[in-house]
């Protein structure tokens, strides 16, 4: 019974999210209240979705990378770069050019990571470490060490506006989820990505272009990170090269792992990665609402990582198997 519950996909994550939301409700009685103001929904629940948008976008790219047995540590730095570009171009050149330049930069960063991993065959942790270290420096180069602010209304709308009552970031995440889901699950692409992560050599022999597959997921991850960077910059109407996206790569990886995708590659789920991002944000918001110092956040996160690890570990599976056999 326990075994089957753990193995049914997605149930533990959704239960965890519900439990956290109920705890949040217990902490703050107005948690589920929603209000409509100036054509936009407000409320703690909307806030969880809105604040969680950057991490959700990051994990959308990250989940594909992790499915190929890789990892992308550079997404936080890419966020800083794209935010810096968007913020410094927005006022003079308008949204289309600023957005194109920022997303183009993300694409290039992803291409660089993918090149290192797929073509040069460098370990993903190491390959993306390079951009993680250098990327923030590049972002500083773009902002010249200052915090660049802007007032361009269309870029501000991207962070603070509303689409059909939902905050724009939430709409963007939903749009990206649908696009990614349609491309990956609507075709055999998702299966090929899982095959690459499961066993790259075997997939190569079976005729899958594993290199192209790996290159593509890193490019997509860079693009998602750039979009997250633009949204984060639009949210605060400025680009802070030092702090934009700092440590968010860890949150994104955590979201993917909570979503049940193994760090050893293979089977992945886009929706559950989103649920993972929401779990993290619901915890953050809950701790803020409860009045505990935000420092508790890190301790809670550490505990969650450990619990998720234990649930996923082969050790628990073998214990479960032994228990099951004993019962029979």
């Amino acid at each position, binding site marked *: 019974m326990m075994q089957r519950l753990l193995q049914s996909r997605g149930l533990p994550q959704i239960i965890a999210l519900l439990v956290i939301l109920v705890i949040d409700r217990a902490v703050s009685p107005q948690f589920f209240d929603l209000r409509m103001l100036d054509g936009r929904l407000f409320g703690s629940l909307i806030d969880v979705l809105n604040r969680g948008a950057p991490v959700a976008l990051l994990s959308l790219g990250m989940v594909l990378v992790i499915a190929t047995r890789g990892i992308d540590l550079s997404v936080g730095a890419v966020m800083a770069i794209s935010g810096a570009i968007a913020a410094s171009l927005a006022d003079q050149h308008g949204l289309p050019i600023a957005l194109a330049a920022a997303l183009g930069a993300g694409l290039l960063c992803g291409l660089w990571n993918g090149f290192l991993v797929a073509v040069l065959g460098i*370990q993903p942790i190491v*390959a993306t*470490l390079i951009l993680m270290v250098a990327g923030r420096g590049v972002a500083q180069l773009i902002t010249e060490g200052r915090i660049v602010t802007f007032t361009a209304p269309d870029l501000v709308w991207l962070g603070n506006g509303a689409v059909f009552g939902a905050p724009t970031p939430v709409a963007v995440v939903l749009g990206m989820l649908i696009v990614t889901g349609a491309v990956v699950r609507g075709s055999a692409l998702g299966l090929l990505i899982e095959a690459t992560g499961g066993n790259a050599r075997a997939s190569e022999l079976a005729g899958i272009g594993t290199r192209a597959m790996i290159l593509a997921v890193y490019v997509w991850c860079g693009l998602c990170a750039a979009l997250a960077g633009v949204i984060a910059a639009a949210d605060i109407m400025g680009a802070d090269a030092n702090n934009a996206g700092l440590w968010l790569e860890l949150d994104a990886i955590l979201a993917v792992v909570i979503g049940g995708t193994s*760090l050893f590659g293979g089977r992945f789920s886009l929706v559950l990665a989103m649920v993972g991002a929401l779990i993290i944000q619901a915890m953050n918001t809950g701790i803020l609402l409860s009045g505990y110092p935000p420092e508790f956040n890190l*301790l809670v*996160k550490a505990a969650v990582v*450990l619990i998720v*690890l234990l649930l996923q570990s082969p*050790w628990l599976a073998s214990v479960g198997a032994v228990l099951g056999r004993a019962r029979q």
Partner: protein
Amino acid sequence: MRGLPPVAITALVFVAGFALCTAQFPNFASTRVVANLLTDNAFLGIVATGMTFVIISGGIDLSVGSVIGFTTVFVALAIERLGVPPLIAFAAILLLCAAFGAAMGAIIHVFDMPPFIVTLAGMFLARGASFLMSTESTPISAPLYSTVSDFALRLPGGGRLTAIALIMLAVVAAGAVLLHFTRFGANVYALGGSRTTTALMGIPVGSMTVRIYMLSSVLAGLAGIVFSFYTAAGYSLSAVGVELDSIAAVVIGGTLLTGGQGSVVGTLLGVLIQGLIQTYINFDGTLSSWWTKIVTGILLFAFIALQQAMLGIARRSGPRKAGVLKS
């Protein structure tokens, strides 16, 4: 000597960099600059020594920066608030760090989890714990601290080789002996080469893993103590991102990130190269400090590409050699 060629290249880069700096700023080649280089990077050198063991064994330890932060806060509060004698506080924190590292190693081994994610949890835990103890910077005014910061070996030319620089050099020397001349060190290399083979050879993989992470955490604790000497304060936000600096130092020092190859001396050179870039920027005065990150990133790429090329050559010539031996 294992891992000599990459170390030689690292040494060459360091000497060339130093020569370049000297050519531009004649004052650069002084014992003062060298002594400051060692003092300013003392904590990084200590922590990178521990990281070298972890990476050679095929693992990674992301928690070291947070452990340094935790240590500075713990030491500062123990000495200033609780009135614990400094030496007892040091012993307590090193024991605590040893237990922390051992726990991470045990989880990695028993649950067969990637070190990356386990030490990530350790990073959150240590940083969160230090935030909980205090979010403010606590100055340390114990007499021992002024004694240590006053102590220095005077070098000809005005350089002051400080106590913390000496501690760092001693740790590096001890680490080099431990890695290159003991059974423990040989086992670390074996573990990085192949876990399965190591287990089949009868080496206790579990206890080795525990001891390697224990070593890394203890050295991170020691680095934290040195850091508290350096700043004479305990602050929960200190040493954020040091794990990246130390991984970069280890890689620039010629250690293979896949494990199985590397040296402690190379790591020291890697630390000094990063310090050199920082010092150059200070001397120049017009460059911003973020150039350090960009140059470090470029160096990282250069060394990783070099390693990859050498691996490629080794792989190509490997099977042929084996074939010759068989026939």
